């Protein structure tokens, strides 16, 4: 009998009142791994009550003690590193290297959480006025929640959880119902920590539970990562309900390749950026713009290298690309490729009919290259979120920058060049929150904020880095005077 997942609320594994269960299959083998409940408002209410009850004690727990929990948490994650990586592969479909990289990036965020005592320090001024001192104090805010996506089922929740709770808040996590198992295992590790009951709570589900989180008055703030339309809804609903919110949306990331780029090395990196995690990451390269003479050599080198990519089951270490997450995702990606072809793009490499021996029913889409893509085409404008790279021409560097800035999205953009002047100009002018210079995946490490502009981000304070300390704390100002005798 397949496991039916339980919520983790108030330090206990509890059954939901759900009648709706969604299957969690391995997208390569189609084996049913678990069933995920659709928690309702009542389940969210229980989680909020537990988190609110825990908050008063937890905020009084010294910050160094809170950070110690993160040390122990890190050790547990390190001990179970291989298990966590395997779970990520099995529920998401990515390769083992990608899963290990994801878990490692998550551990970076735990490391950042361990540093919270340093980052919560106050500042102040003596004698701001005669005999009067003024200081700021960072205080935890209350109950926070995170609604997280399927594409990085371990890393993204861990962007938020360690910092939020080490700052003294309590936490409710709602992972994607498509990939709930990484957080299920993570919460089993959290259970071993003996945190006070209710500091961390796990609520499984989809839209119903997300809606309840957005509307619950007991939740002070929400972190979200997902598509732009949903990010916008999350932002609007949460702000309407008086919450702090950081909502990271989708992307259409451009890469400009200049004629002076080291083509072989650049393409190797572009390839990783476009097809890593089967293109299912918000920092994936979606459009490569060949500037001037670079276009032909970029296309030729890309086709040569991409054709050699080995697609297969993620747990097979010789697989260089895994599956997409689901049959629906596969269908949507294939439809987008077909739409691109209908709009006039040339398919240089077609992954629509890829079959992987031994995994004939798996959700595979092979690496695909669309040529002659123009800015008005749907494949140039909309997020595909799959292993599809569109190639565009630009006659000049300025035209490439114009193409990039025309996009509604602004998550990331990269330039491949050996020109410092072009690189500097690119950093300066391009409207994207994360800029890569000779780096295809411009992913900030945990101590830097994860940028995002235009429709790729809704909010003020980004995830990660000092932004996250600001998001998870309130700065109180104390003005004090003491009368002598």
């Amino acid at each position, binding site marked *: 009998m397949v496991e039916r997942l339980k919520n983790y609320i108030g330090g206990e594994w509890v059954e939901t009142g759900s009648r709706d269960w969604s299957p969690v299959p391995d997208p390569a083998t189609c084996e049913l791994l678990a069933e995920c409940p659709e928690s309702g408002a009542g389940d969210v209410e229980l989680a909020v009550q537990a988190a609110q009850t825990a908050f008063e004690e937890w905020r009084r727990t010294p910050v160094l003690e809170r950070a110690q929990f993160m040390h122990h948490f890190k050790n547990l994650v*390190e001990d179970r*590193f*291989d298990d966590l990586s395997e779970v990520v592969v099995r529920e998401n479909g990515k*390769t*083992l*290297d*990608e899963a*290990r*990289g*994801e878990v*490692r*990036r998550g551990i970076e965020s735990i490391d950042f959480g361990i540093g919270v005592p340093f980052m919560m320090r106050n500042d102040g001024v003596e004698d701001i006025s005669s005999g009067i001192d003024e200081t700021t104090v960072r205080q935890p805010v209350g109950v926070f929640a995170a609604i997280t996506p399927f594409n990085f089922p371990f890393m993204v929740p861990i962007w938020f959880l360690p910092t939020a709770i080490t700052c003294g808040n309590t936490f409710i996590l709602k992972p994607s119902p498509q990939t709930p198992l990484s957080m299920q295992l993570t919460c089993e590790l959290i259970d071993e920590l003996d945190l006070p009951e209710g500091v961390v709570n796990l609520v499984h589900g989809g839209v119903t539970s997300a809606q309840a989180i957005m509307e619950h008055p007991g939740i002070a703030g929400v972190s979200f990562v997902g598509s732009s339309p949903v990010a916008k809804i999350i932002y609007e609903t949460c702000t309407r309900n008086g919450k702090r919110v950081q909502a990271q949306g989708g992307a259409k990331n451009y890469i400009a390749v200049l004629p002076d780029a080291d083509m072989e090395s650049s393409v*190797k*990196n572009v*390839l*990783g950026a476009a097809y*890593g995690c089967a293109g299912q990451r918000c*920092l994936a390269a979606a459009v490569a713009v060949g500037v001037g003479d670079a276009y032909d050599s970029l296309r030729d080198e890309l086709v040569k*290298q991409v054709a*050699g*990519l*080995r697609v297969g089951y993620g747990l097979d*270490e*010789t*697989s*260089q690309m895994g599956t997409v997450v689901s049959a629906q995702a596969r269908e949507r990606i294939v439809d987008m490729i077909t739409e691109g072809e209908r709009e006039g793009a040339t398919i240089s490499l077609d992954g629509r009919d890829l079959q992987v021996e031994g995994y004939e029913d798996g959700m595979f889409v092979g690496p695909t290259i669309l040529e002659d893509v123009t800015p008005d085409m749907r494949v140039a404008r909309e997020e595909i979120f799959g292993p599809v790279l569109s190639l565009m021409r630009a006659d000049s560097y300025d035209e490439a920058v114009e193409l990039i800035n025309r996009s509604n999205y602004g998550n990331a953009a990269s330039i491949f060049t050996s020109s410092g002047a072009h690189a500097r100009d690119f950093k300066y002018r391009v409207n994207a929150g994360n800029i890569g210079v000779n*780096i*295809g*995946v*411009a*992913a900030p490490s945990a101590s830097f904020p994860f940028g995002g502009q235009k429709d790729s981000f809704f909010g003020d304070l980004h995830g990660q880095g000092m932004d996250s300390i600001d998001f998870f704390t309130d700065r109180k100002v104390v003005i004090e005077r003491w009368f002598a005798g």
Partner: protein
Amino acid sequence: MTPLNTFGAIMSKAIELESALADYYGRAGDSERARASEKRRQKMMRIRREAVLEITLEAIVGLDSDDYALDLDDTSESGQARVASTAARFYREVAPGINVRQARSALERAAREHAGE
């Protein structure tokens, strides 16, 4: 044909190789080399866990596990020399394919150790 075409495939091959060598040198009565292999195995496991950098993962081409087959039945002196030479060649040839400095250094060092340098 088992391609060594990913960071993980190369590191796992190194782990498997050192595990086999620890056993091999133990059978050959060379406990010092057996210990050294076990130490390298643990180091390679740590590197596979810690040095994987998701944003710079790149495809690796032109390497195959079958090119580094070891004759582990022959524990004679000349057999040991051949095994050490193959292990050194493995590390020497796979190291340039790895774009993470920490991992590449460890592989290069393993090549030198197996070559007795």
